[in-house]
C-alpha cells in the first residue's frame, strides 16, 4: 500500500546568498494512513516548515512529496486546493476563528468553500460540534468562547469535511495543561475511532510520547526516534 504522505530528498531553502538559510535538509519520510506522528524539535528547527510542505501549503525547494502515491508536483493548483479542502484538516496554535461570526459559521467554512448547500452545511456543522462537545455554543459568537472551546471549534472545523489527515501545529501551545490534555484526548480519539492520520507539531514531550512515532528535527535534519 502507498504511504498516505511520503517525502524523498526534501530540501527547503529560504533566501539567497548571504541570507541563505537551509530550513530543511534531505528529509525522507513515509507516513502510513491511520498513523499518529509527532514532529518534535527545538524552536526554529524547521517543524512548521516541514508540516506546511506535507500539508501542501508550501512547496519544497527540491525533492518530492507524494500523497497516496501521487507526486503532488504533477497536480494543478486547483487539484491541490481540492485535495486540501476534501482530505486535510488543520488545527493551529492560533485559532483563526472569525470572532464576529457564530461558532457554527466558523466551523462550516470548509464546506462553504466546497460549495456545499446551506442545509447540509448546517446539519454537518451541528454534528461535528456535537462530536467535540460544543453543540450548545453553535450560535454563540466565536469571540465569546474560552481558549479550550475555541480550539475545540477549530477541531470541529478540521473534522467537518471528514478528512483523511489532520495537521495540528502546536495545538495545545496556547492552552493550560488541563485544557490542553482534553484537546489531546479528543485528537487521539479521532485518530483511533475514525482512523484519521494525525500529524502533530509540538515541543511538548508528553504529547509527543502519546503518538505512534516521533520525528525529531534538528536544524533541518531528520533524527527519527520510535516510541516503544
Amino acid at each position, binding site marked *: 500500500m502507498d504511504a498516505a504522505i511520503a517525502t524523498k530528498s526534501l530540501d527547503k531553502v529560504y533566501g539567497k546568498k548571504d541570507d541563505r538559510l537551509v530550513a530543511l535538509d534531505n528529509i525522507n519520510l513515509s507516513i502510513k494512513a491511520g498513523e499518529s506522528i509527532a514532529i518534535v524539535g527545538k524552536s526554529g528547527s524547521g517543524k512548521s516548515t516541514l508540516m506546511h510542505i506535507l500539508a501542501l501549503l508550501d512547496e519544497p525547494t527540491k525533492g518530492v512529496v507524494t500523497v497516496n502515491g501521487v507526486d503532488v508536483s504533477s497536480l494543478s*493548483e486547483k487539484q491541490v486546493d*481540492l485535495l*486540501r479542502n*476534501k482530505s486535510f484538516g488543520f488545527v493551529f496554535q492560533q485559532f483563526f476563528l472569525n470572532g*464576529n*461570526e457564530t461558532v457554527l459559521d466558523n466551523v462550516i467554512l470548509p464546506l462553504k468553500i466546497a460549495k456545499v448547500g446551506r442545509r447540509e452545511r448546517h446539519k454537518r456543522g451541528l454534528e461535528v460540534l456535537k462530536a467535540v462537545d460544543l453543540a450548545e455554543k453553535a450560535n454563540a459568537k466565536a469571540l465569546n468562547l474560552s481558549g479550550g472551546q475555541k480550539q475545540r471549534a477549530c477541531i470541529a472545523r478540521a473534522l467537518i469535511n471528514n478528512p483523511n489527515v489532520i495537521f495540528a501545529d502546536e495545538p495545545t501551545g496556547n492552552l493550560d495543561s488541563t485544557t490542553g490534555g482534553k484537546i489531546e484526548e479528543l485528537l487521539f480519539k479521532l485518530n483511533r475511532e475514525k482512523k484519521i492520520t494525525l500529524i502533530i507539531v509540538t515541543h511538548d514531550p508528553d504529547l509527543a510520547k502519546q503518538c505512534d512515532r516521533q520525528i525529531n528535527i534538528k536544524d533541518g535534519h531528520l533524527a527519527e526516534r520510535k516510541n516503544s
Partner: protein
Amino acid sequence: MKIIDLILSANASLLRNKGRTALTIIAIFIGATTLSLTNGIGDGIKAYLTKQVGNLGNSSTLTITATTAKTNFRSSSGLVKYVPGQKKISSQGGGPNDSEQVALTQSDINKIAKVPNITSVQPTLTVAPDYIATVANPYAKYQFILNQTVGISRLDVSSGVNVNNNSSQYQVTLPISYLSSLGYNTSSSALNQEVTIGISNALGAQSTFVATIVGVQQKNLVGSTAAYANTDLFNALYGFQTTGLPTSTIDTYASIQAVFNPNLTTAQINKLKSTLAGLGYTAETIKDQVSTVFTVINAITYVFDGFAGITLVAAAFGIVNTLFMSVQERTKEIGLMKALGMGRRKIFALFSIEAVLIGFWGSILGIIFANFLGKIVNNLATKGFLKDFPGLNLLSFPAKASTIIVVGIMLIAFLAGTLPARRASRKDPIDALRYE
C-alpha cells in the same frame, strides 16, 4: 464558494467596518447623485421637447423649400444667369449677406409628388385674417394669427379637442392666451362658442366667417401662439383672400409640405432627403429642426457629466484605499481560506464583489436621492416658474439611464477593486498563518 456565499461574505466584511464603508459609499453616492441630476435635467428637457415636437408637425412630414445659396444671383465670376420661369418671393441685400428665396410652383409640387415614398404633397398656404371677435366681447376686434393643422400630428389641447379636418363645420382651436381678451374667464366657457373672423381680399372687400371653438391649446415652449383652423375653414378663408389675384400669383409658394410613408427607417428618410436635394430642394423633418436644440442640451449635459465623472474617479481611489485596508486586515482570514482550499480566483472574486457592492449601494442610494430631489424640484417648478408650461418636468429619470449609471459605477468600482483583489489573491497562506 458559491456566488451567493461570496456576496454574503463580502457584505459581512463591509458591515464589519461600517464607518469606513459608509465614507467610501458617500463618495460614490455624491458622484451618482450628480450624474443622475445632470442627466435628469437633460432628459427632462429633451422629453418635454420631444412631446412638443408633436405640436409643430407630424414626424412623417417634410417641409420642402427651394435650395438657395446666400448669394444666389452673384458668383465669384460675376452675376448668375437668369433661368426662365424662376420666380423669387423675396430678396434682401445690404447686410453682410445678400439673400433671396426662390418660389415654388405647381410644377414643383408635381415633381415632388413623383418621388418614391412621398404619399401626398401640399403647398404651405397662409391666410392673413384681419381680426377675430366673439359674442362674449362684442365690441372688440383683435388681431391674431391663424394656421392650418396640415402636417401637425396633434396639438397640446388642454380642454376640448383638436379641430377635425374632415368636418364641414368651420372649427378653430385658440391658444389659452387669447381667452381673456375675447371675454372668456375659463377654457371651458369658451368651448363650443362662436368666433367671427374678418378677412379682406385683393380687391379691398372685407368678409366675415363664423367658426366654432372646439378646443383650447395650452401654453408651451416651442410652437407659436397661433390659432388653428380646420381644412374647410382654412380653404374658405384662402379662397376669399385670393379672389381677384392673377393665377400666376396664387401659384407661388414659399414652402411645400410633403407627407412620406411613416414606416420609413432613418436611413430611408435620409435617402429621400438626398433624392430631394438632388432635385434642388431642401427637405427637413421637424426633428431636424429641433435637433440643433438637442445637440446643445446634450453638450451641456456632457460637460456636467464630466464633472460628475471626476467625482467618481476620486471615489474610485476611495474604493482602492478601503479595499487595501480590508485586504490588510483580513490577511489571516485570507490565509485560512486559502489553506482550506479556496482558489485564487475565488479570493479575487471575494474582494471584487466587495468593491462592486460599494459601487452598487453608492449608486443606488445616489439615484434614489436624486429622484427624491427631482420630485421636490419638479413640484416647486411646476408651481413656480414653470407654472405656465404644464407637462414640463424639469427633471426626469428614465429607468434606462438610471440602470446605465448603476452598471457604469459598478464597473468603475470593479476596476478600482482589481488592484487590492489581486493583492489578496496572491497572498501566501503560510505568510498569513505563521506566527512569531
